[in-house]
């Protein structure tokens, strides 16, 4: 079936090529132009991060003459980028663990169990996706202040977990509903309790959606500036994004340093992206409603 479709498809496009040769050329030119806008800025940053600031001002379009790591050294020694990294990893890593853990448990119940109030909870989950961070941040800040959690990692982790749970539950639920009942029933008949069925049968089968959720949550948390800026005000606890924002307002004229710090933030994300592309594209488009 699929093959015949492909065949007709290629037959149709073959005829098209004859009549629309120039059209196709124009199409490729447009596609490549847009690709250029997404690739070149990143390449520009990377290329210039190896040059001293003066060279960037004079000649930012040339390849670096040597592989100079001075900007990176500055970023780590003078700007304590290393600590920012560690803070980011602690915060985002913890957020991912809790979102995956609590989200998975709730998703399993909502996908399979029958109880009063299930619909209400589901609707409330969908509704919570509509709250922008602006609409919750003021009371959250006051609450955290009263609990003495401002300037502490936990203070940022708590609202970020909450902010990602609804999306995670909806994605995981969607997948768990498609798991055949028979697989689960085998476990139930053998006398497994809910926890055992979940950890031994449901969770392992749902691995790929857990991966989607984990990567999406990590990116969202790692890329956040708004909440981090409000909750973490002392340098020693700030994640890398807040640090970058600060460095750019203080040392914005040191182009070499700026490009190096941007590269430091972007490189791990790009590495993860290129390695786990399909999960990321799936996760981010599925999580469309969130942002």
């Amino acid at each position, binding site marked *: 079936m699929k093959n015949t479709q492909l065949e007709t*498809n290629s037959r*149709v496009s073959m005829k*098209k090529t004859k009549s629309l040769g120039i059209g196709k050329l124009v199409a490729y030119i*447009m*596609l490549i132009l*847009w690709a250029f*806008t997404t*690739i070149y800025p990143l390449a520009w940053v990377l290329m210039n991060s190896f040059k001293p600031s003066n060279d960037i*001002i004079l000649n*930012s*379009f040339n390849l670096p003459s040597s592989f100079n790591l001075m900007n990176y050294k500055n970023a780590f020694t003078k700007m304590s980028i290393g600590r920012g990294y560690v803070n980011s990893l602690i915060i985002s890593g913890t957020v991912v663990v809790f979102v995956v*853990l*609590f989200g998975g*448990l*709730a998703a399993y*119940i*909502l996908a399979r*169990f029958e109880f009063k109030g299930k619909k209400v909870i589901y609707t*409330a989950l969908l509704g*919570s996706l*509509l*709250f*922008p*961070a*602006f*609409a*919750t*941040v*003021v*009371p*959250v800040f006051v609450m955290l202040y009263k609990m003495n959690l401002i300037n502490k990692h936990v203070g940022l982790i708590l609202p970020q*977990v909450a*902010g990602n*749970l609804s999306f995670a*539950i909806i994605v995981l639920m969607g997948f768990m509903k498609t798991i055949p009942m028979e697989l689960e029933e085998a476990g*139930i008949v053998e006398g497994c*309790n809910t926890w055992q069925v979940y950890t031994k049968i449901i969770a392992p089968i749902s691995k790929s959606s857990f991966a989607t959720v984990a990567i999406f949550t990590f*990116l969202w948390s*790692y890329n956040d*500036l*708004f909440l981090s*800026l*409000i909750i973490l005000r002392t340098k020693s606890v700030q994640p890398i994004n807040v640090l*970058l924002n600060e460095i*750019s307002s203080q040392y*914005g*004229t040191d*182009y070499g340093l*700026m490009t190096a710090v*941007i590269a430091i933030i972007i490189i791990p*994300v*790009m590495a993860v*992206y*290129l390695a786990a592309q399909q999960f*990321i*594209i799936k996760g*981010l*488009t599925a999580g469309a*409603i969130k*942002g």
Partner: protein
Amino acid sequence: MKYYKNKRAIILFLFPAVLFIAVFLYYPFFMSCYKSFFNWDGFATSTFIGFDNYKAMFKDLQVRQAIKNTFFMMFLACAVQVGLGLLLAIIVDHVSKGAKFFKTVYFFPIVISATAIGVMFKLFYAYDGGPLNNLLLRFGKEPVNWLSYEMALGSVSVPIIWQYVGFYFVILLTAINGIPQSLYESAYLDGITGITKTIYITIPLIWDMIKVCLVLAITGSLKVFDMVFVITRGGPMSATELLGTYMYKRTFFDNRFGYGSTIAVFIVFLGIVVSSVVNRVLRSEEITY
């Protein structure tokens, strides 16, 4: 089956997630709505003042500017982000080769933080020695102050719009790929190809997805904060102020927590109103088709 009615399991498994969402999303949301009627500094002062915050907001010239700028962003997001995403999706579908490559590459900016992109564009726009002005100088032109009062909004909107084109591209390409090939075949036999095919077959068939994209673009524009904050902080004057950045400043620079809540509630309200208007307008168009 009894297994699926185990109350203890239901409560234990649901409890953590429900607690988090209730405490950190629902409670603060309703609290924001409630406190929008208060003169509130977050701590000591909290006096009920009725609609005074709302009245003040509609008289606030900076809010007016922010609303104007926010609508400008919405318009650009719908026209350029979704428009370009659609155009690129149609072209990729048409050329058929290299779809995977373009998907990968167009998605680059989305995974990067708006903060990093913002700082990057701040460098591009730098007056002294920034690459854009360098380029102008090389062609014998005068350097331009990209972040001046007149130009700042346009300059700031470039990275905001640019970042998410790939996102709508992927959504719409997936929708186009979902159109059954048989429909195209019969169209082909009827001699419908090229642009006519796009207008009469592709676009109507993915119309629902385009609508979803437009609503996302609108609500997305209401959420913009990081990029503007990093590049201009809303300035110069209020040239690039958006509702989000202004809400942040009044709340956390001036400790006007009540007023900030009012602006936040207004942002949610605006999101709901504009998306339902767009939905309604586009629905009637679907009927005419």
